[in-house]
């Protein structure tokens, strides 16, 4: 296995533990916004769709790419806005 792949694997393992650590002690009151926030963060998949769209040359790839970027944006924008709306409800009183 080449060193680049190996360091990627190290990163993956560390991220798995970090993810577990970040979530483990959260009060259940916040589970819904937390799920929604995490949902927005995996919208980072949009970066991949931008890259393939930016390298697409034929019509079919263009159409698929255009669609992929729209869907990814929906995930990002919808995810963050919905989370923000939920958390606004908690903020009002503090």
């Amino acid at each position, binding site marked *: 296995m080449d060193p680049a792949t190996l360091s990627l694997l190290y990163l993956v393992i560390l991220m798995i533990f970090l993810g577990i650590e970040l979530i483990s002690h959260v009060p259940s009151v916040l589970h*819904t916004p937390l799920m929604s926030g995490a949902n927005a963060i995996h919208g980072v*998949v949009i970066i991949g769709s931008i890259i393939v769209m930016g*390298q697409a040359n034929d019509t079919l790839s263009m159409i698929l790419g255009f669609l992929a970027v729209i*869907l990814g944006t929906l995930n990002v924008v919808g995810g963050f806005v919905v989370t923000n709306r939920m958390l606004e409800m908690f903020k009002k009183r503090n």
Partner: protein
Amino acid sequence: MDALLPILYLIASVTFITGLKMLGSPKTARQGNLIAAGGMTVAIFGTIFLYKGHDGLPLHNIEWIIGALVVGTAIGWVMAMRVKMTGMPQMVSFFNGMGGACAALISLMEYKAYGGAAMPVGHSLATIAGLVIGSVSFSGSIIAFGKLEDRIGDIRYGAQKFVNNALLLGTLTIGGMVVAGNLPGFEIILILAGLALVYGVLFVLPIGGADMPVVISLLNSFTGVAAACGGFLYDNMVMLIGGILVGSAGTILTIVMTKAMNRSLANVLFSNFGGAQAASAAGGPAGTVREVSATDCAVMMAYAKQVVIVPGYGLAVAQAQHVCHQLEHELEEKGVTVKYAVHPVAGRMPGHMNVLLAEADVDYDKLVEMEEINPEFPTTDVVLVVGANDVVNPAAKTDPTSPIYGMPILDVEFAKQVVVMKRSMKAGYAGIENELFYRPNTAMLFGDAKATMSSLVSEIKAL
């Protein structure tokens, strides 16, 4: 200049980690969400303007990319702003499905770009995994969305487990053969995507509507993994970190949720909960239920010292949270102390009830968590249970054969008087009889939560 994009990605990754951490505490949650959103914006625009492919060329089609961003932002914004607070879980599910579909499309295009030439195994593995996981997440999320919208029912049949497992096995086998290079051709990729889509549908169909939050949380972590596959494809650190982080955090969140229901993940996904009915029906509770009128109930509450309201799924369905707040207000006018007892899994998702009541302007201090309210029940005059059932079922403490045995519940039966507001005598989602309804200190108030609450409000006003 070439070093700038990796630095932007590094910044974005740090905002994701910080944002997720801050989302875990009520004080910092909102800020955390905004920080992560800021990092995402940096990553997106950094990619559009600074990304260079292996050939050293910048991206083209920029106008189309920006166009798609504008369209997606407009639709996403409008949908997210319009959705009612009660509809949040299905909205999250929908957006999650979009992310899954995006990941699947990326894999399709990546395959197409290779034009039939052999891919390195690692590259091919990431592409196929992204395609399969993304597709399952997409179709599964859409079914979950439909179930929460009450448009899709639970579909169960005899050989279901067998069919599902066979389909999963088939999908994985074909996927494995493609990765190994035994099955060339773009058509086979499309078939694989189709199989994964069908599996997503069949996987979610038998699971009950009340268990959807767990499913959504699980599919959420699936999409995270699919996004991370894209990170492997393009050696893109921010996708890898964001994806894996959500994949792992989402898995833990799923497990924490099932624990709050005192069940295992396998139990939620593969055992059709309704099956437990027969066992508890055999020892069904004896006795009769006592019905109470709205007028009597209003009098009881108005002359009580302390009233505790237990809001449940039924309150959310009837959209009765605003009337509930009004009721609380009227009772306080009469000098009654009103509190809300919120069970960790009340509503459609853990914490969902808190969001709903907060929306209706209920004071955050009035929402009392289970551990703190339980010792107060013996000194409470009236407990009003609104559309909750399993979370107040004493069988969880007394009946080892009950499917919910061991689940922590609200000890409402110790209150002087319990009034249960329900549509009918039908059992809760778990299909378990509730002995509480037959207790001498329990009275039933039948009807739609919203309508009944409104009449309670006007009765109390008239007193």
